[in-house]
């Protein structure tokens, strides 16, 4: 007890010290980045703090995406929420439904008189975080989209021609056969199976993942990813798994380690895998656009994003919100965004940042790094390719993971697994609807 009291005294003294030392307003910013990404965020914060002396942003790492969201929710319930909370795209519907817990970003900017135009953002990024009437609720921060990573050395060794196309899944199938017959143990693997092979697959082929514009138009949305396009794709992957051409490594990005170690030839993963692959891969690698099915009309549409956005929490003073507005404005400036994009492989979320990166000659020096941007911006998003806004989505992804594992192990057909995932997921959507009625 004595130790606790002492600790509390020290902690409160530590908290009070900077306040008494200067009149700076402290802005609490909770994020989910570790390692290289954590360093880059810290650098951004430092740069902002050094650029002015009215506000001091304090960045705190709160665990992985789920843990950070949880920490924010628990803190809000205790009345100790941070000013800015990083929430992954899966939590977007949860945050949007929590009207009393957040302050929309457009409102924050408007009140603080900071110029802000949501049209500065890339369409597919903007769409994910704005209401149907175009108001941006959270600030896009790190967004990526899935691409196909290729170990060129392994393909060469297997005798795959340099110009053999990898544009469609039909093309990929041929290359996989060639790789397998030349004795490659792991011709293809993936990260984030639901995100890449169902969510993005649906958007890319302009078919709905869920009704009500993938949940954008209302809480009464129902899952629809058991349509013919998705079933065909998952069944094909299942057949490849049976032949040992597609190797499942786990629910998250476990496959990344295999690709970087040079044991898997093809790898579907986020464009943000770039930083890791570039620093670890001891082979020639290439980035290709995500393949699509050549026989589906309207494909390729555009892929959708993954990643996180920054939410401003409710219940703070105007002084704090002014600081938050300045900080968010700083983060979305072209220079900061361009550097972030080039360091990490995340998308340049504003058009200006993309333009700046091009002017700096980054894409010429690093071929393939603009593929993700092109793939996302090739077409204007349709209601099937704006993104997803589904409640309880973290759990729904868990269900999809479970059901897909049934396909990879050969226990279920694609149709059975997807039907079951849709039915189970719909129950969770109804619960979310009930909770937010």
């Amino acid at each position: 007890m004595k130790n606790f009291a002492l600790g509390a005294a020290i902690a409160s003294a530590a908290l009070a010290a900077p306040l008494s030392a200067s009149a700076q307003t402290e802005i609490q910013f909770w994020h989910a980045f570790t390692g290289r990404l954590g360093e880059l965020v810290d650098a951004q914060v430092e740069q902002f703090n050094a650029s002015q002396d009215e506000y001091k942003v304090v960045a705190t790492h709160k665990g992985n995406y789920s843990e950070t969201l949880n920490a924010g929710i628990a803190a809000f319930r205790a009345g100790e929420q941070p000013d800015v909370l990083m929430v992954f795209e899966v939590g977007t519907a949860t945050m949007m439904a929590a009207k009393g817990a957040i302050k929309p970003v457009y409102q924050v900017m408007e009140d603080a008189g900071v110029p802000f135009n949501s049209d500065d953002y890339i369409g597919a990024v903007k769409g994910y975080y704005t209401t149907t009437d175009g108001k941006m609720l959270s600030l896009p921060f790190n967004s990526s989209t899935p691409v196909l990573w290729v170990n060129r050395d392994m393909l060469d060794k297997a005798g795959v021609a340099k110009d053999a196309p990898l544009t469609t899944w039909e093309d990929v199938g041929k290359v996989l056969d060639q790789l397998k017959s030349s004795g490659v143990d792991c011709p293809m693997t993936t990260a984030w199976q639901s995100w890449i092979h169902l969510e993005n697959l649906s958007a890319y082929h302009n078919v709905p993942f869920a009704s009500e514009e993938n949940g954008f138009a209302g809480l009464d949305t129902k899952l629809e990813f058991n349509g013919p396009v998705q079933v065909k794709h998952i069944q094909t992957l299942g057949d490849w798994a049976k032949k040992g051409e597609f190797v499942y490594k786990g629910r998250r990005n476990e496959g990344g380690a295999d690709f970087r170690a040079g044991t898997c030839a093809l790898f579907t993963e986020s464009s943000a895998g770039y930083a890791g692959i570039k620093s670890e891969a001891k082979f020639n690698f290439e980035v290709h656009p995500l393949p699509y099915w050549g026989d589906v009309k309207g494909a390729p549409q555009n892929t959708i994003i993954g990643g996180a956005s920054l939410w401003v929490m409710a219940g703070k003073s105007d002084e704090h919100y002014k600081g938050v507005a300045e900080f968010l404005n700083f983060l979305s400036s072209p220079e900061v965004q361009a550097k972030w994009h080039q360091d990490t492989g995340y998308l340049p979320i504003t058009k200006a940042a993309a333009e700046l990166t091009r002017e700096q000659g980054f894409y010429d020096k690093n071929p393939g790094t603009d593929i993700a941007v092109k793939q996302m911006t090739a077409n204007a998003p349709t209601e099937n390719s704006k993104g997803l806004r589904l409640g309880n989505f973290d759990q729904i992804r868990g269900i999809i993971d479970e059901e897909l594992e049934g396909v990879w192990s050969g226990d279920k057909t694609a149709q059975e697994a997807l039907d079951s995932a849709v039915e189970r997921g719909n129950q969770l959507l109804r619960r979310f609807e009930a909770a937010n009625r």
Partner: protein
Amino acid sequence: MDKRVTFKGWLLPLLLIAPQVLISVVFFFYPAGEAVWQSLFIPDPFGLSMQYVGLGNFEFLFNDPYYRASFVTTAVFSTLVTLVSMVPALFLAVLADRLVKGAGTYRTLLIWPYAVAPAVAGVLWLFMFNTRIGVVAFYLNQLGYDWNHVLNQNEAMGLVVVASSWGRISYNFLFYFAALQAVPKSVIEAAAIDGARFWRRFFTIVLPLLSPTTFFLLVVNIVYAFFETFGVIHTITSGGPQQATTILVYKVYADGFVGQDLGSSAAQSVVLLVVVGLLTVLQFKFVEKRVHY
């Protein structure tokens, strides 16, 4: 003769039990009551609103075939964990008890794994069995066995059972070792003079004398398997492949703390409370009858 000590008045006895009662109320009755209350609602994660649904959360759960299947998974898992953590512990304790030299060293080494937190133990085992870099997986592969707990349900179950039991063997070992030292040497020597061999003596004399310890460990280990193993499951399998390792408590954790579905999570903890309560009553009613104190 009644040797019971009686207090005069009420104040002192009340004062003496107050700390225990207070701890139970604060750390058990209050949260348990809160869970029962919350299980009747679907709240939003931020605590801004709550929808009263009566027994709707329970209805939702028991209509879900996957939830019902998770009872079977839990039963298999906790039986295996209890067996795998108790039998080797007893075996090691018997061996260590017979040691003349170096018993202290063996004892210390055997107790060590207990100091490892479940989540850390999970990561350690995952490293050994990792399909890409795991040492054990590598040698199994050399022997022609293709280890893949990422997709093989039985292998996944085996791995979480072993990882959950490993540290627990130390705990059980400690109790058995102490209990063995308390077995009167004279009884064993008498049996030896009568010609009973070691294993005969063990099964007819030592094991029955250990039964209070065995019973205690049985209760404690089942509770452990039910409630404290989600760290291991979270780090190794996250409940997969499919739902092969989704035990009840892991689902409580995943739905409540990852999925923000607090109503369902609360209802699940109420169900778990009832299940473990029933199990404990059953154990005390039936198993304890066979215990000789």
